[in-house]
């Protein structure tokens, strides 16, 4: 399946990119599995950021939430606006 991945703030800087479109291998069902796979694919910063947050289709998500074909999945550090 194909997903759009977004990175923000320090994570975007560490990875040197803000987004990518990826074909995922079979068997990746959750945000947590996606994160682990991305880390294994050279995006080590995903493991290094403390308290990494996730969003699926622009809503806050948990590691156990499903990832489906066509989803927009975002990874970012805890928010600091206001």
């Amino acid at each position, binding site marked *: 399946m194909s997903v759009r991945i*977004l990175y*923000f*703030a*320090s994570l*975007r*800087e560490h990875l040197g990119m803000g987004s990518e479109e990826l074909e995922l291998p079979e068997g990746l069902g959750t945000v947590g599995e996606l994160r682990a796979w991305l880390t294994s694919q050279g995006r080590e910063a995903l493991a290094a950021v403390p*308290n990494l947050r996730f*969003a699926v289709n*622009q*809503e*806050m998500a948990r590691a156990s939430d499903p990832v489906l074909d066509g989803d927009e999945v*975002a990874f*970012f*550090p*805890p*928010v*600091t*606006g*206001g």
Partner: protein
Amino acid sequence: MPVRVQQEDFDLSSEVAQLRAGDARVGAVAAFVGLVRDMNEGAGVSEMALEHYPGMTEKALEAIVAEARGRWDLFDALVVHRVGTLQPQDQIVLVAVTSAHRGEAFAACEFIMDYLKTRAPFWKREVTPAGARWVDARESDEGAAARWAR
């Protein structure tokens, strides 16, 4: 539109005037303005940049306002959050709420700020004499938001 994300500055009086325009049921306006400080975590701050997640930001803020309207009797609520490069003393965020009575206005305004601080996808990067750095999330913000859990 109850929420706006913009580079431009905002004027507190005109925003509040527009929020309550013509509505004589309003007895209370609670407003909060967040500002860039020249000092954070012990270091001088000369400049701040605000990054956000376009699309999600607006949805997250709208969801927070909707949640506040479900919890308290409000007539209206507004969130304006700036992005881009800011200087010390610049305005960052405005939250304003109108209600018949002050208790609900105060509670809803603080609730929106507390939720915004932990749920709206904004990130601050500040420039200090030691270089630029991403601002760390404060644990006290999680605690402030958790107070409203129910």
